[in-house]
């Protein structure tokens, strides 16, 4: 078996260059078909009915009027009498109809009687949750340099030792920090178009998990996964929320089976936001002791938050974030609320952890009156990964791009122009990445045609293009010579797009298959040209003897040697196996400069610098896009977006786009993306990029606002209301 490797840096024609995505024109011109665009003849439109109440029991469901609405074809309850509803928007019934209007009218005609139950949705106040008996047993986790004596009570020792360390510190900072629940708000709502051919189901599902969802449809429908084909050529956003077939996907298939017609069921925006996932909240009370240089000596925190009905919150395993001081005690309490369940949201746990702990580190700088940059730098010795040197180098680069040193002023000590002040803040982050399991099948046709097929998907990260680049580079062909087939579960299985594992996974399988296929083709070419197969190179559309261009065949001539049968080669990668093509674990440093209007509390990003390592870069253009996008999503959750719940009723009040505030094109300021790529990065292979740059903005922007105003706005997003409250002027 060949030794798999990447071409030497500087010798590539496609890899590590800027390539335009191969489906760019199709997407921009509306030609690309998403799941909700699939519209076979006779398709019915289905709609879900969400429960208006956050906590109740179903006393009765009457669908008789709904069935009589003109245009309604089928009404199907999803709940039974006696079922308990635990959050607003949980789905009670489905209606399939000829038109959108009829489906909506059908939903409105369903009559449900409810028995109301106590509602609790307050995740910000631990005491309130405790009083309502909504907290889980606290999890605690202690690490100390000193050990208790053999017969000493452990908890008493811990308490005494923490107090001793705090007292021994030059400065002690106490603070409260928090970040609210946000949603995924995928532009294309969750849903599918389902059609049956006999007992064979085709589900056009908006999914991040093409290869993994067929099996999810099968069990509840009483068929086997082999009867299901899942298609998803294009997905309108997932961000971690679209890994499952979901009950509404199965319902769509069931409605199609019962009506004998194709059915399209996309969730209404409000139901999606209420029921199809969110990012948990995190609140924390911190005591932090540091020496006079700002090096943290001891960390003591109590945190809480919610993931909805099951409790949960932000994992305490990442608190404090990246930094892991030798002495620390952390306690986490989960709060069960009458709110929809969480789902993975880009870099699960990390953005919240950064936002609620790097802010505390920054407050150490504020308390000591020293530069935040220096505090972050001096604490790098305690980072939990092995990236301290990378952070140091990246901080230097980021500071240069931000002109940090010349712009810096102590917290609250900057120049005020009118009512506007400016400030700087930073954060650092880490993420694993690495490839997921991936299998692909490369076919070289005797006429020179090349295709690769795998059950992967393109979340918008440019996966299709990445795959094409890897295969075309290996064969020495132009990018458009490779036909990339993804988005169907009928292709060889490849992993879901989650955790920044896709680019590494699909690059692994495709590079392996392409190298193996080329080796087989080279055997034929070598015999034809009378040279050794090992001496052959594929470049610029030819296979030729290295050093002797006269001995060569065009790609087409070479492929003709295959005779009548296409050459098919599978490539496979298993996550965790050692490989020279991919690795894992990245760092990353981000800095924000913001302006704050002290009279209105409005925060405007002026400039944002993101320095990011990511191993070998397959496509520089889409890699940069990922970072821009992550920063903008970061600006969103730092300044604008949050789920707002009515504490009385548990209603999700802003579950429509008009009320769910997000940044617009004019809100982003200047964004500087720096692909951090010494040769060592290229050499360690592909890692993955989606999550890391979305992690630090909360900390960087909150710290910049603290630097500008001289006060900490404790909870994200930093709305005018919260800023004015913190300034004491509201």
């Amino acid at each position, binding site marked *: 078996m060949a030794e798999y490797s990447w071409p030497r840096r500087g010798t590539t024609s496609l890899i590590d260059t800027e390539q*335009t*995505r191969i*489906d*760019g*024109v*199709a*997407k*921009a*011109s*509306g*030609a*690309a*078909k*998403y799941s*909700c*665009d699939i*519209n076979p003849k006779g*398709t019915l*439109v289905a709609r879900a009915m969400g429960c208006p109440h956050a906590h109740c029991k179903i006393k009765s469901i009457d669908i008789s009027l709904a069935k009589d609405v003109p245009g309604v074809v089928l009404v199907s309850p999803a709940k039974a009498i006696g079922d308990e509803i635990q959050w607003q928007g949980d789905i009670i019934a489905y209606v399939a109809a000829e*038109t*959108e*209007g009829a489906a909506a009218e059908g939903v409105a005609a369903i009559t449900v009687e409810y028995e109301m139950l106590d509602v609790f949705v307050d995740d910000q106040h631990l005491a309130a949750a405790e009083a309502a008996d909504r907290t889980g047993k606290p999890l605690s986790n202690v690490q100390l340099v000193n050990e208790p004596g053999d017969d000493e009570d452990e908890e008493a020792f811990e308490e005494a030792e923490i107090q001793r360390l705090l007292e021994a510190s030059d400065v002690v900072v106490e603070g409260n920090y928090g970040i609210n629940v946000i949603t995924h*708000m*995928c*532009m*294309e709502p969750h849903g599918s178009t389902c059609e049956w051919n006999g007992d064979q189901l085709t589900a056009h599902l908006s999914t991040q998990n093409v290869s993994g969802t067929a099996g999810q449809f099968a069990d509840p429908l009483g068929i086997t996964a082999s009867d299901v084909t899942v298609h998803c050529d*294009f*997905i*309108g*956003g*997932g*961000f971690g929320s679209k890994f499952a077939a979901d009950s509404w996907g199965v319902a769509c298939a069931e409605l199609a089976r019962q009506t004998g017609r194709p059915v399209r069921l*996309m969730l*209404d*925006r409000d139901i999606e936001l209420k029921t199809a996932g969110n990012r948990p909240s995190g609140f924390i009370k911190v005591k932090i002791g540091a020496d006079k240089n700002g090096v943290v000596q001891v960390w003591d925190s109590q945190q809480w938050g919610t993931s909805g009905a099951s409790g949960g919150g932000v994992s305490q395993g990442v608190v404090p974030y990246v930094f892991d001081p030798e002495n620390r005690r952390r306690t986490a309490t989960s709060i069960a609320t009458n709110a929809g369940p969480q789902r993975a949201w880009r870099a699960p746990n990390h953005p919240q952890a950064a936002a609620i702990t790097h802010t505390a580190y920054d407050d150490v700088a504020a308390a000591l009156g020293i530069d935040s940059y220096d505090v972050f730098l001096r604490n790098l010795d305690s980072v939990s990964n092995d990236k301290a040197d990378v952070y140091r180098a990246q901080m230097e680069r980021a500071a240069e791009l931000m002109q940090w040193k010349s712009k810096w002023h102590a917290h609250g000590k900057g120049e005020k122009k009118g009512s506007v002040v400016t400030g700087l803040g930073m954060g650092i982050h880490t993420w694993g990445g690495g490839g997921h399991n991936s299998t692909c099948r490369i076919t070289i046709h005797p006429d020179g045609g090349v295709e690769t097929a795998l059950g992967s998907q393109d*979340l*918008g*990260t*440019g996966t299709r293009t990445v795959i094409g680049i890897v295969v075309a580079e290996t064969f020495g062909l132009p990018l458009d010579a490779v036909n990339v087939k993804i988005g169907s579960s009928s292709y060889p299985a490849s992993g879901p797009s989650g955790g920044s594992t896709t680019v590494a996974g699909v690059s692994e399988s495709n590079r392996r298959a392409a190298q193996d296929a080329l080796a087989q083709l080279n055997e034929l070419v070598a015999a034809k040209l009378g040279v050794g197969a090992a001496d052959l190179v594929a470049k610029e559309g030819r296979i030729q003897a290295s050093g002797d261009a006269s001995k060569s065949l065009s790609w087409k001539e070479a492929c003709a040697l295959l005779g009548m049968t296409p050459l098919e080669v599978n490539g496979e990668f298993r996550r965790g196996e050692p490989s020279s093509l991919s690795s894992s674990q990245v760092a990353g440093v981000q800095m924000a400069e913001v302006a704050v209007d002290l009279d209105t509390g409005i925060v405007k990003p002026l400039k944002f610098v993101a320095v990011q390592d990511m191993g070998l870069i397959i496509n520089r*253009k*889409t890699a*940069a*896009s*990922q970072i*821009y*996008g992550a*920063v*903008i*999503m970061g600006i*969103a959750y730092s300044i604008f977006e949050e789920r707002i719940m009515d504490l009385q009723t548990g209603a999700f009040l802003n579950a*429509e*786009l*008009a009320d769910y505030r*997000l*940044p*617009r*094109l*004019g809100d*982003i300021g200047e*964004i500087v993306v720096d692909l951090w790529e010494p040769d060592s990065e290229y050499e360690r292979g592909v890692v993955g990029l989606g999550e890391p740059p979305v992690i630090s903005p909360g900390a960087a922007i909150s710290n910049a606002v603290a630097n500008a105003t001289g006060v900490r706005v404790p909870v994200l997003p930093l709305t005018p209301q919260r800023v004015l409250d913190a300034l004491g002027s509201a």
Partner: protein
Amino acid sequence: MNRDQLARIAVGDDERGGVSRRAFIKGSGAAAAATAIAQGAIVMADEAPTSTAVVGPEATAITMTVNGRQRTVSAEPRATLLEVLRTQLDLTGAKPVSSDGSSGASTVWLDEKPVSASTTLAIECEGKSVRTVETLGGVKPDPVVSAFAAHDAMQCGFCTPGFVVAVRAFLDKNPTASEDEIRAGLNGNLCRCGTYANVIAAALDVVKGGSNG
């Protein structure tokens, strides 16, 4: 307000455009204002008064010009333009993102003005001209489409067709737009993936490339 408070409109005035000079004077005490309204009104003098046809709620025939071609569809008055384009005419470039049009993802041209197809009823478009993002594609795409691809001004791409229409419409009106004007003028569209920085670059490129027309 009580109907007794409404002064009856005299016929002749109505036929000149529905504004009674006398009543306006009576109501407002501002003679000049009435004159202004009367002058601004469009005169339909010779047209005999007619009553208006009421259609629906059943499906009715709607004829409009879509992407240059006359099309007749059958739809209920409550059908949105977006639903008709997507399900009856297979024009799925305009996307359903928000029910209230706040995302801009369903932007199309209605009589050459950018509007949200999701908050426009199909029946309103009777006799009007609708143009969709699909007219900007094809073998020789519009420079805005090419610039979006070249600058990677998309990720998942779901908001992108609406954004492309918005950029095209904006640049048609502001062919030499500066970066500041672009940042101020394209806020009717929403993107979740965060492609704004590249959209700005793409729009600027179209301006600079002189291919903006």
